[in-house]
């Protein structure tokens, strides 16, 4: 069991955790956090793949590293835009619920199963 394996499993688990949070957490802000967790898992996957491709005196393939740096910045921008939307929604309606029903949230069953 090498570092690559350990972190590869860790990355996959982070993806799973992020997905679970994204599905089940009702508050948008929690969904955004879960999305970030999911994203970091995917980036780690790139890191693991780059680490497997270590060669030519590089401990990690530089191409996946560059892709991750680009990806991190994109994910940060996405987070910022999503949070701005959540805050504006809160300012306008006093609630941040995503479901289309009245924002009172009484008795609606959003589980959908």
């Amino acid at each position, binding site marked *: 069991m090498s570092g690559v394996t350990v972190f590869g499993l860790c990355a996959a688990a982070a993806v799973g955790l992020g997905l679970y949070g994204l599905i089940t957490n009702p508050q948008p802000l929690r969904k955004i956090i879960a999305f970030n967790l999911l994203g970091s898992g995917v980036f780690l996957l790139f890191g*693991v793949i780059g680490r497997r491709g270590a060669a030519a005196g*590089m401990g990690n393939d530089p191409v996946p590293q560059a892709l991750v740096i680009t990806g991190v910045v994109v994910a940060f921008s996405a987070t910022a835009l999503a949070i701005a*939307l959540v805050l504006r929604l809160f300012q306008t309606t006093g609630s*941040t619920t995503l479901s289309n029903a009245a924002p009172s949230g009484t008795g609606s069953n959003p589980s959908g199963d």
Partner: protein
Amino acid sequence: MSIATIFEIVLAAVVLGLGIWTIVVRETYSATVGFVAYGLLVALIWVRLDAIDVALTEAAIGGGLGGVLLLGAAAQLRDSEPAVTDAAGNAVRVCAAILSALTAATLAGAVLVLPDPAPTLAPAAVSNAWATSLANPVTNVLMAFRAMDTMLEKVVLLLAIIGVWSLAPDSAWGGHPGPRHQADPHGVLVFLARLLPPIGIVVGIYVLWTGANHPGGAFQGGAILAAMWLLAIMAGLADTPPVSSRRLRLILVAGPGLFLVVGIAGLLFGSAFLSYPPAQAKPLILAIEVAMILTIAATLGLLLAGAPERRTGQ
């Protein structure tokens, strides 16, 4: 099993533990705190993966500024929490857990069966470094081999700014983003905001400069500069500029703009779009990176500040 592997297993376990806590903890504020800690430890994983450039980026942008963003939002939304009652039912939770676990397991399986020896572009990146005379291959990939992605990603940042600004109330358009912060002028925050930025600016520029040959670069340096700017704003020493400011807008497009200009110059006079003549590659790339660090610092700072909400003088 070597000590290094044990350390890696412990690190991965702690990271995952923090991840679980972040997802399941009741209060949103605790979740954000958990996420910040998670982000910093993930940076350690990146160090273990020998990807120092990414570790710096992850710590500065993913954990650091992202954490500030989430904490700020969580603080503002604290009052909204009791209103949210539509929590997922148990059946949904179980289904979601099963599906997420299956997806994660599939992914893990796919990673474990990747071929050995792994394909890599590291030798190609290293052997083509002559074209830019920069010794950091990651910078080479970002600025030369895949310069298009980097340029487009700068436009993504700009669009995020436009998107955030477009959420302003119409009456506040052209005004300053975020609230005007006040702090005790003799307090410790103001003290820090006076002491730290000079050091931080030096460190930021150093990170940019060293990025040519060692881990570092415009993203990481820009994040540090943005943090210094935000510190000064939070201490009330500076105000966010109004979004109608022409100078601000010039700074926000400086990075992609210069990138585009150099790229088109390459199309017209050089060999190709986004190609650099080998003799001038290094100064050109450094010039773009200087423009980019300004753009990135301003963009990250303004993304944290949010939509314009008050006109000048309010």
